[in-house]
Every structure is written in structure tokens, then in C-alpha cells.
């Protein structure tokens, strides 16, 4: 026990009970002499005086301790540093701008090949924790330094890119967290995602298992087929249905093969001839016979025997079968592009119930198989009142460079109201718009800045984050629109953001 510890113990109990401190020796002759000089004082004065001497001696003699081993250093930052201006804008955004602007900054930085200023990484990673909508952008945009940093803080594990963190989160996370991890992995490393699902499959809740199977649709490949095929025999119906849907989007799967074998005798393309050709101006038609039964093997492949209210059961079976074959199969089979086949189906639609079945089944199949060509063809002919969310679902499949001209085309045809396909396509076009589309949107919506247009509010809120800011500001200027407000502020902020990378 050191001299100091003995002194503290004595002081804790009090000299009243403990008496004067014993002879205290620190082992330093000068100090001991100074302590000895206090001998004639009262017990408490001696204690305090000794403590004062020891305190100064101890504090002045403080040494640095042995260090734990250093951290492994981060890989060198490969990207060039960003400009002071871009850094300043990012700092401003981190101080509380709408989170999508952070994503935009990161995208522009990636395009320019510049790095996030390292000192801003902690705030950026924390922004990713707070705002789920930018989490993936943050994880993608932080570079090697950011991933290194994220791996050191469990709160930022989402951005560490480490499979260990993913495995850990998979075992202990909530359903939503696990689903997020799985979706992320399926985008970057599909086999690792499948491995996670298999690892806990036996003990997971049915609802989770169905959701996990659905998540396998991203990045699905033949590696996933054996597992998905076995899931067709799962105890739970929701799992079986999900597996059938995912397999139905996988061109080489056994399920697709079985389904096409069932469909080929039923569905055929009829070329126009004779009288028919003169009436229908060369339009081919699709002839579909209805299946006569829904046998056990069809039910195993996810065909639900009981139709929804108001639909014939055989029509219902056909529709489900068509939805579980990637539509590109038919295009290849008949050697016709998607647009022609959709037109043929629509031509048949007027004639029979099966026609209508064809268009909606192929639409469902296109969404299911994430087929951009079919989605684009379908959007080109979308009507004013498609069922909820369909236009958005299809638009999400079309890459920006094709969706942008399509949006322009639809804008020229549609009135820009909330239910028009044009508005819904714009709503789904979550990427920066070029000057042409920007101008078209602002021209099509003269009341764009009218504060009371509640119907358009959502569309416009989204648009403010996508319009090409410089063009938009110029157009507003031409229109002499004096509106200020947060919408215009946002455009100006984005203009600053874009200029910072010029």
C-alpha cells in the first residue's frame, strides 16, 4: 500500500477516530524531510499538509502509461481531395439539409473521383444512422478510409462493408435490420446473402422466411435455384408462394421450364391472314386456350386454385402461369419485340377476356422479372388510370438514360396531374434530371409553385430534389416567378452543390 493510499484511508475515517497519520515515508529524502517538518502540527493539519506535499509530488511525477497496441492504419485515400468549396457545401449539408442532398453530394463526388474530407466522415456516418434513406449512399460514398472508420464503431457497422458485421447483425438484429442486411448483400455479394438465409433457415419465423425469400429476387441466379426449389415444399404457404414468384423470374429455373411446357400448348401467336388482315391492318393476335385443371404439380409451382371474387377459375390459372414466366421468353419464342406482343395482346383484349388477362399477366411478369424492355414498352402505352403503384413499379425498372426520354414523351402527351402516368413516372424517376426534362416539367406545370396545389405537392417535393438546378433557376427567372419559399431555396442550395463540383 502506497503512502498516498494510507493517507486517503486515514482521511476517509477521520483523525478523530483514526488518530494522527503514522510516519509517512514516500522514499524521497527531500520530501520525507518536508513531511517530518510538519510533526508539531495538529493531527488534521499534519494529514492535510502531508497530503499537499504528496499531491504535488505525485502530480509532478506523473508518467505516461504503456499503450495498448496501435490500430492497424487505414488504407491510403486513393481519391483526390475534394475542393474547399465542395467540403464547405458538405459541411453545410451535414448541419441539417434534407438528407437526399447528402446522397447527391456523394454521387457528384463519386463521378468527379474525389473523396469525402476525412474529418467529415464521422458526421456523415452518423447521418447515415439517422436517415435510413441515405444509408446505402453513405456506405457507397465513404471510400476505404470511411469503411475503415466504420468498422471501428458498432453504430456505423452498416457502412463497414465487412461480412463479419453483416453476419453479426444477421444473428442478432430485428427482422427489419436483417432484411436490410440481406438486401444490401444481395446487391453486392449474392451468394453471401443466400448463405446467411440458409444459416438460420431452420429456426426463423415463417413471416421472416417469406420476406427473406422475396429478398433473394435481387441478384437471383442459378446458384439460388436448388434452395428456392426446396422452398417450394415448405410447410408454410407464404414461403412457397414467395419461392415460386422468385423462381418465376429466373429464366433457367426448373419452374420456368415446367411452366412454359404447360403454356406452350395453350398460347399461340396468330399472324393476320385473309379477311382478318384487311380488318385489323396487319395486327397479329394472341390466342389463348384456358387450362382445364390445376393439378398437384401446378399447385406446387405456386398456382393458387381459388380465384379472387369475380374471376373465372381457369382464367385465373392462366394468368398466374403467365406471370411466372419471364416475358422475354415470349419475345424470343416468337421473335417479336415486347411492344409488338403487348399490342397483339391488346388487340386480342377487345375480343376476349383472355386478352385482358394477357396484358396484366405480362405486366406482372415484367415487374417480377425486372425486365426493363417490357417495362418501357408497357409504360409507353400506360393509360390514365392504371392500378395503384403499377406505373411507379415499372418505371423503377427502366434505367435513367431510357426513362428520361420516356418521361419527356409522356409529358408531351399527358396533362400533368397527380394520376397521370407522366406524373407517376416523374415520381419514380429518382435520379438527377437533365436540362431538357427540367424545362419540360416546369413548362408543363405553370402552377408549379402555387403553394395551394396539394395534389401536386408530393410530385413537386420530389422534383425539387431532381430538377437540374441551374436550368430550373433560369426557367423560373424567365417566368419572372417571384416565389421564394423552401422549394426555391432548395433549388439554389442544389445549384451551389453542383457548382462546387464544376
Amino acid at each position, binding site marked *: 500500500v502506497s503512502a498516498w*493510499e494510507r*493517507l*486517503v484511508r486515514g*482521511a*476517509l475515517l*477521520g*483523525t*478523530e*477516530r483514526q488518530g494522527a497519520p503514522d510516519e509517512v515515508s514516500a522514499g524521497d529524502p527531500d520530501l520525507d524531510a518536508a513531511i517530518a517538518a510538519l510533526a508539531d502540527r*495538529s493531527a*488534521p*493539519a499534519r*494529514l*492535510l*499538509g502531508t*497530503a*499537499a506535499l504528496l*499531491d*504535488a509530488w505525485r*502530480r*509532478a*511525477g*506523473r*508518467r*505516461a*502509461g*504503456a*499503450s*495498448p497496441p*496501435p*490500430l*492497424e*492504419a*487505414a*488504407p491510403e*485515400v486513393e481519391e483526390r481531395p475534394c475542393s*474547399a*468549396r465542395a*467540403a*464547405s*457545401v458538405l*459541411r*453545410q449539408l451535414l*448541419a*441539417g439539409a434534407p438528407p437526399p442532398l447528402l446522397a447527391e453530394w456523394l454521387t457528384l463526388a463519386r463521378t468527379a473521383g474525389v473523396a469525402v474530407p*476525412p*474529418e*467529415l466522415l*464521422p458526421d456523415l456516418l*452518423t447521418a447515415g*444512422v439517422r436517415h435510413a434513406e441515405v444509408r446505402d449512399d453513405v456506405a457507397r460514398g465513404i471510400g476505404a*478510409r470511411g469503411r*475503415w*472508420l466504420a468498422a*471501428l*464503431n458498432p*453504430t*456505423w457497422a452498416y457502412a463497414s462493408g465487412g461480412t463479419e458485421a453483416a453476419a453479426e447483425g444477421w444473428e442478432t438484429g430485428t427482422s427489419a435490420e436483417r432484411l436490410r442486411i440481406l438486401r444490401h448483400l444481395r446487391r453486392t455479394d449474392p451468394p453471401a446473402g443466400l448463405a446467411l438465409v440458409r444459416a438460420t433457415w431452420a429456426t426463423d419465423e415463417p413471416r421472416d422466411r417469406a420476406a427473406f425469400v422475396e429478398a433473394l429476387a435481387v441478384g437471383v441466379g442459378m446458384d439460388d435455384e436448388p434452395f428456392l426449389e426446396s422452398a417450394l415444399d415448405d410447410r408454410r404457404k407464404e414461403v412457397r408462394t414467395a419461392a415460386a414468384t422468385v423462381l418465376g423470374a429466373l429464366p433457367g429455373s426448373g419452374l420456368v421450364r415446367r411452366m412454359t411446357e404447360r403454356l406452350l400448348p395453350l398460347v399461340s401467336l396468330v399472324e393476320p391472314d385473309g379477311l382478318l388482315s384487311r380488318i385489323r391492318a396487319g395486327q397479329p393476335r394472341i390466342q389463348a386456350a384456358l387450362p382445364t385443371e390445376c393439378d398437384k404439380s401446378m399447385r406446387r409451382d405456386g398456382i393458387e386454385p381459388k380465384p379472387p371474387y369475380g374471376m373465372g377459375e381457369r382464367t385465373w390459372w392462366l394468368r398466374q402461369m403467365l406471370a411466372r414466366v419471364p416475358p422475354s421468353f415470349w419475345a424470343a419464342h416468337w421473335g417479336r419485340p415486347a411492344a409488338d406482343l403487348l399490342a397483339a395482346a391488346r388487340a386480342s383484349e377487345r375480343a376476349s377476356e383472355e386478352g385482358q388477362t394477357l396484358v396484366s399477366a405480362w405486366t406482372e411478369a415484367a415487374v417480377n422479372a425486372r425486365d426493363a424492355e417490357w417495362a418501357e414498352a408497357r409504360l409507353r402505352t400506360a393509360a390514365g388510370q392504371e392500378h395503384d403503384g403499377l406505373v411507379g413499379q415499372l418505371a423503377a425498372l427502366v434505367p435513367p438514360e431510357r426513362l428520361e426520354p420516356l418521361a419527356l414523351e409522356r409529358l408531351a402527351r399527358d396533362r400533368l396531374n397527380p394520376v397521370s402516368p407522366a406524373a407517376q413516372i416523374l415520381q419514380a424517376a429518382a435520379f438527377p434530371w437533365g436540362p431538357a426534362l427540367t424545362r419540360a416539367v416546369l413548362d408543363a406545370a405553370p402552377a408549379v409553385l402555387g403553394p395551394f396545389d396539394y395534389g401536386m405537392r408530393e410530385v413537386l417535393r420530389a422534383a425539387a430534389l431532381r430538377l437540374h438546378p441551374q436550368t430550373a433557376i433560369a426557367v423560373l427567372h424567365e417566368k419572372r416567378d417571384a416565389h421564394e419559399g423552401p422549394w426555391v431555396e432548395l433549388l*439554389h442550395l442544389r445549384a*451551389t452543390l453542383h457548382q462546387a463540383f464544376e
Partner: protein
Amino acid sequence: MTLPAWTADQVSAMAPDPASAKSGQGLASPRKWVSLGRDARALWGECQGSGSTPYRVIVDAAEPAFRCSCPSRKFPCKHGLGLLFLYAAQPALVAEAETEPQWVSDWLAMREAKAEKKAEKAAAPPAEHTPDPAAQARRAAQREERVRAGLDDLEQWLLDGVRQGLAAAGQRPRAEWERVAARLVDAQAAGAARLVRELGTVPDSGDGWPGRLLERMARLQLLVQAARRMDVLPEPVAADVRTALGWTARQEEVLALPGERDTWTVLGVRTETEERLRVQRTWLRGEQTGRTALLLAFAAAGQPLEPGPTPGTRVPGELVFYPGALPLRALLRQRTGAPELATALPGHDSLEAALGEWSAALGRNPWTERLGLALHGVTLVRDGDRWLLRDSAGAALPLARGADAAAWMLLAAGGGRPLQVAAEWDGAALLPLGAVADGRYLVLPTSAEAGT
């Protein structure tokens, strides 16, 4: 003289609060400004506010000092900060002007006149302000008598504490410590009063509190004893005792002392609120002299603090030190050139060397509470939930608790490689204030402003 190239970090550090920094950032856009200009000594601009007349904003680059025609009580206001943020990010937008507008030169002239007057006043012998030496001596005697009585009380109370035991002392209500402190304030020993108030917080400070309580009580007891022997102590030591008691030398007297010229690197700034008082500590280190200096500024809570020199800059100038065995606290008497950005911090190559400076400081003045240090070649390491700074020799000192945000920023900026770090050492832990990474100075957050 050319304008320094401030970084956005440094501008943020000038803001009186985070909200002002944020609003300032918002004004860092050319479209908010009707006019912008600069020359060798100042920046100016007219900022379009909500009213019809734009606000006129001037920043005197030397200090920097701010002037704005807006009615804000904050200082500097968001317009001044906005101008600097804009200049930091896009210097080209603030174009060099041939001539200053009249309103700019008027204000600069006024400032110069004021500075001259102040210098004259400082240079003038203070004798003319002491009309009656007898009355002054009487007042001094009265004050000493009051202090003596107050310190007698304090000593009795400290001795009682040790007699009855710290276990009992630790259970005393906070109000009792406050009462003792209040008596010391009445006795005009505000410094001792602050130490007593701090004592009151120790029993709640977790494991090992009895040792920390005893240390502080012993230091107070030492102060009481030293105060009784003031007339026989060497003058510099007596000055330290007076400072610890809370009798600060008057600025005019200090300014009359000989100064020290050097290029002073501003290591870092820390602002704390103690007892409804905001205290700003700016740590400097002389490049030639190797001296450490501390500039203090005070303001009532909620009131603006006069910003000191900007952290991460090199300021050529003359400091005058308050007298003491270890002169640390100083006043910046005059600047002798334009500040420049620091690309390195003068400091210590090992933690042992830094602790050597601390030991020497305590040897001169046992009431030294903190020391601003710059440490070279240090990396951040973690030991459980504690952060440490590690030097190249493998020795380590802990970071203060609550320095998490700073620790993460250090890690991010250094990527695990050695950095130069400026920190405040209080004998137990380091509080990082700034760092130089890749030749660039970073201001570190000193409270839970960022990170997790």
C-alpha cells in the same frame, strides 16, 4: 499585408454558438450578397436581409474583428461569419477592390483611433489615477483583513473535514459547500471560492473520489498557508498565490510590463461555462521562445465572447505575461504582422517531454490547473471504452471522458497514422482541441456536438 486564407473550420470556431455557425454557412452564397469586396486589411459586403436595406458587414482581417449594421446581439453575427465562410470557400468571389467604400474606411479609421487611444492609455503612467495613497492603503488593508478572516474560516472547515473523516464530508449536501464558497466570495477570494465549489462535485465523481477530494482539500490548505505568508514569499510566488485566491492583476498594470515578441501559433481554444460565466481559454506557443501562453476571455453566460486569435494560425505579435513564478496567462498587446495558416504545431516529440513541461510548471506553481500542449507523432488507440493518445515511443495518456466526438474526428483525419494534436492537459486526461493532418489544421469538437 495580405488576407489570411481562413478555412471553414476556423470560421466555425469564431462563431459564438453552433446556431450562428449554421446560419453563417447559409449566407455563404453569392446571391445573398448585394456587394462584396476586399483589400489588404479588410473584407466587406452588403448582405440582403429581410429588410429593404442590406446589412453592411466589415471584417478587419488582422484580429479578425467584426462590424455589422444588423441588430443582432450575437457577436460575431451570422453576416460576418457568412462573409468569412464565403471567402473561405470561394475567395475569387470576394474580389480585390481598388478603393474601400467610405463606410469601410470610416470604421477602420475609427478602430485605429481607438487602438491608439488604448495604447496611449496603457503607456501613460498609472500614477495619475491614484489620488490618495493613504485611502488606497486603507482599502487594501481592509480587503486583506476580510480575506484573512475568510481563509481562517476555510481552514477550520477543511481541518474539521479531515477530523470527522471524508466519508462524512462526502455526505454533506451540496448546499453546504456552496455556503462556504459564498463566504469566500464575500471575503473577495473568488478563486478560492471556485475551488471549494469544485470540491462539492467530487463526491459524485465515481470511484476513487476520496483520493481526489483529499488532493483538492490539500491544495486549498496549501493556498491558505501560503496566503498567510504572502509578505515573506518571493514576489512571483506571491503573485501566483494572489491569482489562485482570485485577485487578478489589472490589465493596465500588466500592459505596462515588458513584452515578449515572437510568432505565436494558436494551438487551440476551449470555451467552458462555469458558474454562469463563459470562460474562453486560447493556448499559444511561441516559435522562437518555445513559451506557452494562455489568453483568457470572460463573458456572462449568453453574452458574446470577444473572439481571440483564430486556432490554427500563426500570429506575429507581442505578448505581455501576468507576473508569476510561471508566467502563463498573457495579453496580446499588439500584432506585428498578418496572421498566417499554421501547417505544423510547435510542441513535444514525446509524451514524456510534454509531461516534463507539466512537471516544471507544477514545480513553479503547484496551483497550475491546466496546460495547453502540442504533441507530435501521436495516434489514437482504444483501451476498453477509453481513448488514449499514444506517442511513437509507445507511451500513452488518456483522453478526457466526453471527448468521443474529437476522438472519432482524429481517427478519421489520421486514419490511424501519426498526427500533431493540440490538447489541454489537466493532470489526469487530455482534452484534444485541434490537430494537424496533411498540413491542414482541424478544429476538434470539444463537447458532444458531433459523432455518437
